[in-house]
């Protein structure tokens, strides 16, 4: 898997976003400074602790980290694939002897790295506003890698399906963002009526935000909101499902490359 060809493509993908920090790292950094300042400091001061022992700014950190990570992983993969299709330079990769799996893993891997870097940047910004001590480090790292890879994998599909740049915007703004905002980033599920708690359980983002919150703060909404059978194993069950989903999505990516969906005539 780690062939010279794979490394070359992975490196190319990393360099593409690293050399453009104004386009890739500055926007989420600025947005999150605003989130922490407005929602955390100004409004958060007037909001009771959503969960006992965890202040509002601290409660926000995991959700914002997830929001930044997955949207950047998705955006990077979808843009890289779509821009390459649009200008047809993805042919440089497609006509090379790289295996389809190598191509996909290089695109997904690099996009996940961008998502993770943004996640770290947001955590560091959060740390400027509130002290953070990581409760379950290993669980947190594994979860972050899984969700970054998952959304990078979704991004590949988005980049292959898109017909113009507007489609990418639609996917990010009208699908991804609302799901994350209703994914308990800014509130605890315990604050909702039971009916909305049940509805929220259908939103996959809830499990991601909750898992990262568990890794970072040691608190999971699932323990009080999910059905007893699931609550007992949450958030490890969430991580298991997310990992499985990531493997499936990447397998779909490889399949789409193999049949040349969106890539070949």
């Amino acid at each position, binding site marked *: 898997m780690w062939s010279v060809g794979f490394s070359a493509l992975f490196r190319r993908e990393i360099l593409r976003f690293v050399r453009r920090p104004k386009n890739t790292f500055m926007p989420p950094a600025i947005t999150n400074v605003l989130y922490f300042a407005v929602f955390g400091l100004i409004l958060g001061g007037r909001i009771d602790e959503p969960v006992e022992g965890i202040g509002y700014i601290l409660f926000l950190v995991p959700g914002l980290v997830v929001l930044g990570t997955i949207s950047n992983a998705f955006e990077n993969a979808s843009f890289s694939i779509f821009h390459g299709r649009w200008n047809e330079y993805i042919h440089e990769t497609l006509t*090379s002897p790289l295996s389809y799996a190598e191509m996909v893993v290089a695109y997904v891997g690099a996009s996940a790295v961008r998502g993770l870097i943004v996640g770290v940047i947001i955590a560091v910004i959060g740390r400027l506003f509130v002290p953070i001590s990581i409760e379950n480090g290993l669980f947190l790292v594994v979860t972050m890698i899984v969700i970054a890879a998952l959304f990078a994998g979704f991004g590949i599909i988005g980049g292959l399906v898109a017909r113009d740049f507007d489609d990418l915007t639609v996917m990010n703004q009208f699908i991804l963002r609302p799901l994350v905002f209703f994914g308990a980033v800014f509130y605890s599920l315990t604050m909702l009526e039971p009916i909305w708690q049940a509805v929220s359980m259908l939103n996959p983002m809830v499990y991601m935000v909750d898992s990262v919150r568990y890794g970072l703060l040691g608190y999971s909404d699932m323990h009080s909101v999910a059905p007893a059978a699931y609550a007992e194993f949450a958030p490890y069950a969430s991580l298991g499902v997310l990992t499985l989903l990531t493997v499936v999505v990447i397998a779909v990516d490889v399949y789409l490359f193999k049949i040349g969906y969106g890539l070949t005539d």
Partner: protein
Amino acid sequence: MPPAIETTDLVKEYGDLRALQELSLTVEEGEFFGLLGPNGAGKTTFINTLVGLARKTGGEARVFGHDVEAEYQEARNAIGLAPQEFNVDRFFPIREVLMHKAGYHGIPEDEAAERADEVLKRVGIYDKRNERFDWLSGGMKRRLLLARALVTDPDLLILDEPTAGVDVQLRHDLWELVTELNEEGTTVLLTTHYIEEAERLCDRVAIMNEGQKVTVATPDDLKTRGTDTITVRLESSPAVAPDLGEYAHETTLEDGHLEVRVDDGGSTAPQLLHDLEADGYEIADLEISRTSLEEIFVDLTRSEDRTVTRSGASETDEPTEDETDDGAAREQEGIA
């Protein structure tokens, strides 16, 4: 050694359209092979099925014995492609673009850098190595496409209309370079609709039309398939064209010039002169014109939708290089 390219009953369909219709073609290793045909004949589709930019609908295609789908990695590793379109990575300076391409083909970074410099020098744009693709002139872009095809040191070089829209100087430079490469042992597949180019460079040409192979032959062989015209100026013009032997397929008389269409002008001329003199005509002048490859090509690919251009003529229906350069895409660059 298996042939460089071998296809058997290759079919590619786009919905109802059959772009390739049971195309069987063999290009031997070391050959300089031309693919001639009007626009829409299926030349680019044929190439795309070999390099992985189109999936075949049926039949078989092998590159140096490797099936282009089952053994796609081996097949693609052998090919260097200079396409018609400017499909070059716009995020990086061209030297890095070449290094990346070499890297994808398994060439380690140090060696990739050396090769990138080498091919940039070879095509004459080394001093532009730190520029990005968008800032190159049309001719330089064309040179870069060739450099990118060469950076992986391919055994099979595929050139898809490499001289479309380029100036005379560049065209000659490119011809010289690919001839040199072919002499060094690289198999070359060239598609063109400049007849002169095929005639000048290719060992053999295949003429394609509407996704089918019309014929495969050497340019010389092809020319013998056409007829020659012997034009004779007579001292005193007769009222009607004289009756000649069976060798004359067609005889016309115009302004005192007698035009006789024959299979082979050189060997038929003495007989014609003899016959005319025997009939009492006095011959003032004689000229033999051979059928051009272009005329044969036109005959072979006769259809309503045809674009054939002479080398150097400008009436192609292709966009100019500026038009193919996607300004809108450039604006999008770097936004994410």
